[in-house]
């Protein structure tokens, strides 16, 4: 089984189990402040890291490295669109189009 299949199937099964867990455990779990704090902050830290890595990481012959390119402009455009409360799809397409146009230029 390829790495992609393993990630897809294990990831999908695990994500469903996490959902079932939430519907099944006693509600007082949430009352623990530390649990609530970590659970609220985890997506923030991970999504921010994904934004950064997706925008600035690149693979070279020597391995992964940081690079500044058209993706950063795309991210800037996305941020501007979010500031004016554009819908999700507009933000994504706007970010992509900005990077694509910059590469054409």
């Amino acid at each position, binding site marked *: 089984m390829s790495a992609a299949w393993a990630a*897809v199937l294990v990831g999908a099964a*695990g994500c469903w189990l996490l959902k079932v867990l939430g519907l099944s455990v006693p509600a007082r779990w949430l009352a623990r402040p530390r649990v609530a704090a970590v659970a609220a902050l985890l997506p923030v830290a991970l999504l921010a890291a994904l934004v950064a890595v*997706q925008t600035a990481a690149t693979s070279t012959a020597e391995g992964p490295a940081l690079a500044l390119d058209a993706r950063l402009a795309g991210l800037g455009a996305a941020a501007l669109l979010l500031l004016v409360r554009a819908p999700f799809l507009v933000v994504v397409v706007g970010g992509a189009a900005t990077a694509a146009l910059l590469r054409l230029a």
Partner: protein
Amino acid sequence: MSAPGHEHHDEHHDEHHDGHRDGNRGANRDERRAVVRAGLAVGLATGTYGVSFGAVAVTSGLSVLQTCLLSLLMFTGASQFALVGVLGAGGGAVAAAATALLLGTRNTLYGLRLAPLLGVRGWRRAAAAHLVIDESTAVATAPASRGHERTGFLVTGVSVLVLWNAFTLVGALAGTALAGSPWADPRTLGLDAAVGAAFLALLWPRLTSTTTRLVALAGAAVALGLVPVTLAGVPVLAAGGVALLVGALVRPASLGSEGRS
């Protein structure tokens, strides 16, 4: 369907809600209709961006089948984008699945909130769990959904499920059709920038307090610092450590309203 004479009491019915039990059946039906409409609107808005996931997933190297199975079985957008992003960057299966799972933990939190509202057991709970996502939770727990939480949850969850999967297929087929052409390089269409934009859009509504903004900055900094010195996938997982550290140290009150957008 026809909605005769819908008055604007969607948002402001709270004060009347517990008052009169009789004679408000019509109002109750209108409230329910408003919840259904909200759920369908959210489903449409969210489902359509499945097209961006489908396109990004196949250009990251997944097959159309793998892409569609992710939307059908994993069915939680941020985790799907993360899994594809890590695999596309050359990360291994463990790092990809682990990142998806860590992002999926917030659905556990949603489940805790939803459990008393839904009151489902057995196979119904197993099925309902599949629909526990950002959007269904947001509609079900909105003040305007009071008394109609199950309706809000089901309508939103099912409409997102159907449309998200349909549009994932559209995006995956479009991405595949481009293969072999100059457009096959994801950079030509800026699809590599689209992934970052998607993550930013998912992050944005969570940046509601100073603490969350600082955690976001620290998470990004940790990840960037580790990119040149670790395997793909590790920087993102390591950023999760920032959340553990801050969550263990910070006063929960400084997180803002319930920590959810």
